[in-house]
């Protein structure tokens, strides 16, 4: 057991140097992870972004979301790398870091049975990325297929901020 842990620690050390420097964590997204995310952000406006390292439009959108996170500190930002396996943790972290998304809550599909993971999130989703889910304070979900329009996201975020105001 000790040897296994040492081996894992060695791998962690070699693979996540960047991550350590940025304090970024890449959580394994598995069965049940979706419910975990939904519960842990319940009552808070949350943007969940699905993307992947090989997805062209994602490369354009990711830095825009990094800026969105800076502009809207009141919105929880969650990213989920949903490329089919093998997902590449190094490439994933590197792209998140360059996009300014290291401080976000970052997950990566880590079950080879990606169909099942997607089904838990939305049975109608066939795996096209990018995809963004806006979860309002009320729990209402708006799904944006493909690249999101940033003004649209800003408007939603401002609307959520206004909701806070009315409740206070």
């Amino acid at each position: 057991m000790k040897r296994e842990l040492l081996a894992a620690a060695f791998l962690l050390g070699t693979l996540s140097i960047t991550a350590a420097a940025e304090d970024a964590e890449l959580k394994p997204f598995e069965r049940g992870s979706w419910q975990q995310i939904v519960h842990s952000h319940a009552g808070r406006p949350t943007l969940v972004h699905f993307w992947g390292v090989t997805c062209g439009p994602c490369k354009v959108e990711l830095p825009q979301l990094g800026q969105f996170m800076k502009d809207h500190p009141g919105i929880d930002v969650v990213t989920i790398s949903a490329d089919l396996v093998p997902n590449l943790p190094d490439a994933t972290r590197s792209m998140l870091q360059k996009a300014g998304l290291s401080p976000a809550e970052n997950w990566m599909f880590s079950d080879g049975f990606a169909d099942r993971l997607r089904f838990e999130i939305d049975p109608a989703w066939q795996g096209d990325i990018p995809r963004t889910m806006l979860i309002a304070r009320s729990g209402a979900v708006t799904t944006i297929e493909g690249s999101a329009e940033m003004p649209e996201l800003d408007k939603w975020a401002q609307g959520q901020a206004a909701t806070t105001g009315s409740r206070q």
Partner: protein
Amino acid sequence: MRDVRPVLGAAAMAAVFALWHGGAFAQMNHQHASEAACEETVLRCASKVTPAFGPDGTLWLVWMAGGQISVASSKDDGKTFSVPVQVTRENLNLDWGPDARPKIAIDRKGRIALAFSIFRDKAFNGQVLTTQSNDGGKSFAPLRPITSNNESQRFAAIAFEPDGTVFAAWLDKRNRVPARQNGKPYDGAGLFFATSKDGGSTYSDAQLVADNTCECCRLGLALDGAGRPVIVFRNIFEGGVRDHAVVTFKDPALPGEVHRVSRDDWQIAACPHHGPSLSISPSGTYHVAWYTNGRARKGLFYARSTDGGKTFSNPLPIGEPNRSPSRPQVIAGPNGLMMVWKEFDGEKTEIKLMTSQDDGASWSTSRGIASTTDSSDHPLLVSDSRRVYLSWMTKADGYRFQPIEGEP
């Protein structure tokens, strides 16, 4: 080339996660995160398997496993296989995209042509590599790029024309370079083609069929009765609408007009990773099955064209909408049309089948013919002169090659 191969990446990732989650993950199978059952190059460890029958009834498979491409054949309809021949010699970062797979074609003389793509850099730019065997699959020539151009290429499809010419089509991003130089945006990728007169050793210069097609979906390729290539592909129509289109070649070197298969109105700036399937029956009817999530319709659909792809029938919905139907494959076999697709109920993936005896005018009800409870490759259909077979790689149950019996 990447320093971390996919399989190693998956294993390492699992180890890292095991550490993060401490004891809870210590028991986790390190292959849990992979779509393959194991890491060797054998068929059992494959993530993608593509079948084809040779003219003598021999079944040929090409597969991706352990980071390598291998080929084997079977003389008894998949019950036993020859010793595999490994086609790749070095560790390449094989294209593991959901719609990517190695392709194989066999001509009348038994010559074998292969094409597959790799990620050739850290930005995941693709490159299509080809090879061929002139000794009945005993050995394969060194790999050669299909084109000298270095812009990203993926999703090659190949077929032998009746005269032994290899026809190849693929998606290629070369035209984004001049567009960018002129300060213009370039969406998607170009649909390109080339031919080989020497069995797939060398290919002609790449020629454009259509610019701005969807860059992340496989192509549907078939030859019509006259041996002319027909390609169905996800196009990018005006306004970023990623609906399907078809092109019929006038001759092997001259693409015809591009026609629309259906108006699904799927406007999306994304990678659907979900390409179409095409088969042409002896009557000349085109049969197309595809996935869309458009404003006009959502799900899997089938349509046919009896006028060489100029117009198509109204799209017929396929499968149970609440079971996430996906990955349709249609084939015109010796006993009529057959179509398979995947359905998923949250735990189990099932392969559903429906058949048509009237060239696609009407279809049978659907029935399940196979299932698995872990990840699986797309269900593929292949036929010899007698019947149609399902070819399906599954992680939990291995490779399945089963004859499809007649009407349900």
